[in-house]
């Protein structure tokens, strides 16, 4: 059973189509990253799954329930982390966490939760006195108070330092390992690459990629190297039979085959050509394309 099933979802605001006939699923025990440039339709889609708004057309099912019409019963098993805010500035950390544990009533111990998000030393602090990273960890704790079967996390590592990011990644990985379906909306591709098993990529209200991360990456490979700025890319392209592009002081050759013999032959042809032209070769790398590059290719580089 899928935890979240979105089918032919369309969301309009007046004449503006924010989400245009999208379909995807998220399963238990996996982190599904919802990626996309600003205004791509991510937030509208996530908020529809969270029950904040009704679809204009299409259907959304979370734990086999309609999140808009069955909101109260559904929310006892769904954890939500807003991108920002959600807590009164004068509210104290331990009181707020205890309040949410009691509201969800899923047997989560507030003291254990405080420890899990490493906020014991801030238990008596008010929300307004927390740092950006501490606020993110507290918002994550409020989502965890539900002992969620499905967790919607919006930009969980935004504004968090390196140590805080590690802690949050650890918690998210644990959630998924324990069977929770984690839906992660993020602008940070590096974060998605580290955490997600599946990627749903939005652009202009449509889904342009929806696949396991490994499949998405293995479908596209690239060879990168540095050389002289005067290198003739047309001549090299003709020599190797693939398009060579010049990006930020690097030359890039993209290809679809994951065949290692093809990769070896490509490297050999490039190095031979550079040698015959007496051009330098530095920083050569070959492998699966980075998510950031896949993203740029699919969205026209609007991130």
């Amino acid at each position, binding site marked *: 059973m899928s935890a979240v099933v979105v089918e032919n979802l369309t969301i309009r605001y007046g004449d503006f189509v924010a989400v245009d006939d999208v379909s995807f699923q998220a399963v238990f025990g996996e982190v599904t990253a919802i990626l996309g440039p600003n205004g791509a339709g991510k937030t509208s889609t996530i908020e529809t799954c969270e029950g*904040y708004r009704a679809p204009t057309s299409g259907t959304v099912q979370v734990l086999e329930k309609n999140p808009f019409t069955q*909101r*109260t019963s559904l929310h006892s098993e769904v954890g939500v982390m807003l991108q920002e805010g959600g807590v*009164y500035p*004068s*509210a104290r950390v331990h009181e707020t966490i205890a*309040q949410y544990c009691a*509201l969800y009533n899923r047997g989560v111990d507030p003291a254990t939760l405080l420890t899990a998000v490493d906020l014991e030393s801030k238990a008596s602090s008010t929300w307004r006195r927390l740092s950006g990273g501490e606020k993110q960890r507290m918002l994550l704790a409020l989502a965890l108070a539900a002992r969620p079967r499905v967790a919607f996390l919006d930009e969980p590592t935004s504004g968090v330092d390196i140590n805080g990011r590690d802690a949050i990644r650890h918690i998210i990985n644990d959630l998924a390992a324990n069977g929770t379906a984690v839906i992660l909306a993020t602008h940070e591709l590096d974060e998605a690459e580290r955490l997600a098993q599946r990627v749903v990529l939005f652009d202009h209200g449509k889904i342009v990629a929806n696949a396991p991360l490994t499949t998405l990456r293995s479908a596209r490979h690239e060879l990168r190297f540095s050389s002289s700025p005067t290198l003739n890319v047309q001549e090299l392209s003709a020599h190797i039979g693939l398009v060579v592009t010049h990006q930020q002081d690097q030359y890039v050759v993209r290809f679809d085959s994951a065949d290692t013999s093809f990769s070896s032959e490509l490297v050999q042809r490039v190095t031979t050509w550079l040698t015959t032209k007496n051009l330098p070769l530095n920083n050569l790398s070959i492998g699966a394309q980075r998510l950031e590059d896949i993203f740029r290719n699919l969205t026209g580089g609007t991130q």
Partner: protein
Amino acid sequence: MSTLTTQLRAELNVVRRNGEQLLVTLGIPLLLLGFFSVVDVLPTNEKDPVNFLVPGILALAVMSTSMVSLGIATGFERTYLVLKRLAATPLGTTRLIAAKTLSIAVVEAVQMLLLISLGFILGWSPEQANWLLALCAVVLGTFAFAGIGLFLAGNLRGEVNLAASNGLYLVLLLIGGIVFPLDKLPGALSAISRCLPTAALSDVLRDALMSAGEHTTSSWIVLLVWAIAAPAVAAKTFKWN
């Protein structure tokens, strides 16, 4: 602890921690009652001003809790996305409103206890007081002012709502028959004031506690209309985030 009790406790914590709200709900009513009872400068038409002031100050207390305190807190809860986050819990709208209503009732009970006690200390002598009728008036007044407060909170940004609620509080304090009798106001202003919930609540409370209401029937009608219309308009127009 039940979901409702949990949320009630959270609501009361917000009130307790908010110094401005405590000033408006407890400080100002107690100060006005004490000061103007001792310093006889108001044209109250009463031998002892405390007899005029107690019912009016009780009306002020209802307005300060159910309109100003509730409205400002709810407005900032919208701004800080507290309501949005609570909407994603099993609490539900009904229990959220019930918790807010109960928190108002708790604060109003404390207000009434303190103000009536201070009134007795200052020599207030209610005549043939009908406490049940006074309680009905307080309940209707609470609905009316909560409706106004939530209408402002549900449609204005936090800071604008803060200014609007405090401004309205001051206007209603001055022309609502709380400290100045309505017959001392200019004719047109007096007529307008009689249509306001503050004047209506003050008048019916004076009638219930002192047998001194001036336009009791029309005041009950005005109060009832506000108690129905204001929450209905607030419910229709309220924006959660």
